[in-house]
């Protein structure tokens, strides 16, 4: 077994078995875990507090209990998270951090307190006007508030040095991931759409230090291989999340490679580097200030459409695939705007509506295959 395959298998296994991976990570690091809801949470503070931040981006499960709080027209990530919380799956978490980026997240923040009382909730509100100095200061106040709650939870202070080290580690992780998504463009066969997603997702369930080292090794091992020939369709993908995994299998079946992404769960987490100056909390806030093209962060002039057009050009892609999470209002509101801009640039656009609980993929198969046939 080659080094590349060994590393990929390990990361895929980790991503496909979150509960097992989190338990092992907790055991390995002797840390307790704290759940981090989408879209952004101050993971560096969690890490600095000595906890293991783990991502909570839903999954596949039968929804029955969550119906008491969330209607069927709420997005399936939130419904799944609440369902699993109510079923006790998240009892291993010391707390969950829930930001309020959309209406459903705001409701879940309150619902969680009564629905999953055994797992404390730490709410965080990011500023709507993050580009104003007041918004920036407010964001730091929020980070400080989360810091205090975590200090109470662990029973000791989180020092500036703790924060500095955690932030440095996260910057290293983000830089490595930016490097990873660049490098894998040359290996669309070995690292196909499914594998690319799972490798990135694994990082949500592992200690970032250990995970970053594995990704570094994978990059080094991949670079020893010659670039792979690929005669399929190269796309840029956008959306909240590139799941269910069957969707990515359909991409791979039809020789469609994701050469760059704008998924909230993937590149949006690491594409923006930090500024050099400031305290760790200021640098964290500046990262949010500097983030562009994210549906959940207000922009007077939306840059997402032009950003996607640029990504297509920069990566020699042929098209954009919009993977729309059903009932994700913010992403749905953005769609008409980005559609117009992408089509005006003459770039073919594929729209796929997804739901984490979907189990019939025939329509999606027909759409993806037709799109690939159209572009070949």
């Amino acid at each position, binding site marked *: 077994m080659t080094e590349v395959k060994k590393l990929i298998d390990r990361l895929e296994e980790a991503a496909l078995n979150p509960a097992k991976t989190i338990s092992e990570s907790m055991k390995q690091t002797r840390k307790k875990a704290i759940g981090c809801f989408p879209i952004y949470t101050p993971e560096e503070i969690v890490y600095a507090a000595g906890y293991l931040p783990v991502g909570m981006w839903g999954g596949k499960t039968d929804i029955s209990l969550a119906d008491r709080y969330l209607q069927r027209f709420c997005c399936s990530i939130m419904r799944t998270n609440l369902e699993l919380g109510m079923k006790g799956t998240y009892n291993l978490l010391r707390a969950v951090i829930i930001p309020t980026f959309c209406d459903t997240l705001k409701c879940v923040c309150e619902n969680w307190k009564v629905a999953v009382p055994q797992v404390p909730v730490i709410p965080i509100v990011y500023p709507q006007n993050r580009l104003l100095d007041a918004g920036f200061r407010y964001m730091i106040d929020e980070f400080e508030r989360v810091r205090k709650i975590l200090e109470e939870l662990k029973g000791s202070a989180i020092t500036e040095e703790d924060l500095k080290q955690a932030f440095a580690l996260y910057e290293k992780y983000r830089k490595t991931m930016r490097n990873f998504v660049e490098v894998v463009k040359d290996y669309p066969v070995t690292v196909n759409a499914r594998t690319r997603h799972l490798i990135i997702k694994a990082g949500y369930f592992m200690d970032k230090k250990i995970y970053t080292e594995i990704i570094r090794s994978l990059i080094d091992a991949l670079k020893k291989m010659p670039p792979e020939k690929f005669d399929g369709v190269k796309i840029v993908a956008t959306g909240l999340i590139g799941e269910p995994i069957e969707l990515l299998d359909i991409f791979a079946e039809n020789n469609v490679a994701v050469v760059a992404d704008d998924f909230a769960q993937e590149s949006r987490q690491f594409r923006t580097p930090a500024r050099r100056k400031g305290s760790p909390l200021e640098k964290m806030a500046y990262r949010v200030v500097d983030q562009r093209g994210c549906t959940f962060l207000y922009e007077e002039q939306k840059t997402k459409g032009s950003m996607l057009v640029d990504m297509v050009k920069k990566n020699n892609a042929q098209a954009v695939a919009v993977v729309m999470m059903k009932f994700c209002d913010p992403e749905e509101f953005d769609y008409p705007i980005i559609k117009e801009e992408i089509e005006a640039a003459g770039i073919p656009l594929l729209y796929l509506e997804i739901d984490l609980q979907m189990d019939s993929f025939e*329509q999606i198969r027909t759409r993806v295959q*037709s799109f690939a046939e*159209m572009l070949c």
Partner: protein
Amino acid sequence: MFLGMDIGSSSSKAALINDKKELVGCSVVNMGTGTNGPEEALEEVLRIAGVGRKDIRYTVATGYGRVIYHNADSQITEISCHAKGVSFLMDDVETVIDIGGQDSKVIKIDKDGKVKNFVMNEKCAAGTGRFLEVMARVLGCGIDELSGLADKSTIDIPISSVCTVFAESEVISRLASGAKREDVAKGAHVAIVKRIAGMCNRVGYRPIIAMTGGVALNGNIVRLMGEELGQLVVAAPYPQAVGAIGAAAFASEKWKRG
């Protein structure tokens, strides 16, 4: 001979094209994937063409059941095949509206029958042949009688529900309140036409617009579609078999390319 098999959700279609690129036969059997429909459609088209299975050089499968049909040399989606089929049968078509039993599509095509863009309905029976089947049942007529019935309509009755289930109860309550069957039938047609027109607007459309799929046999809907879009809308020849004909045309090309 080159065979195209279009295995849909509610019917199976087969078409044969000869070496001179002439259509020598097509068949439609009202049994879809998971039934004996594909086999019967194949037998029927072989009988019509007067040839045997050994004469088939290459087979392309399309439609909902294309992936599990193992007797084909390759499979291509119905979107590409309807585009190809229309261009095989007609000149100057730029937009194809295919309304099948389970889903509907609007496809923009170039002069060679290649797909330029397409839009498909969401996973819902609204705007599909299934919607009309339900309406025909509620109105107590065959699906092939709906067109003639709607032609007799004198009053516009809107059916506002796009969901097939809600539309069914809306139609029942219209009939219960004394509405005439023909007016309700036309109301159901207008509902489906507006749904499809919305898809046309999403993808953009240009004349000539050809309708394919079983619903294209409904002359009332084809006329209403033209009125709604303000463009020339015509039913393709052999509308139910266009996908199979396109698949056969692809089979011929693939064979020649080796």
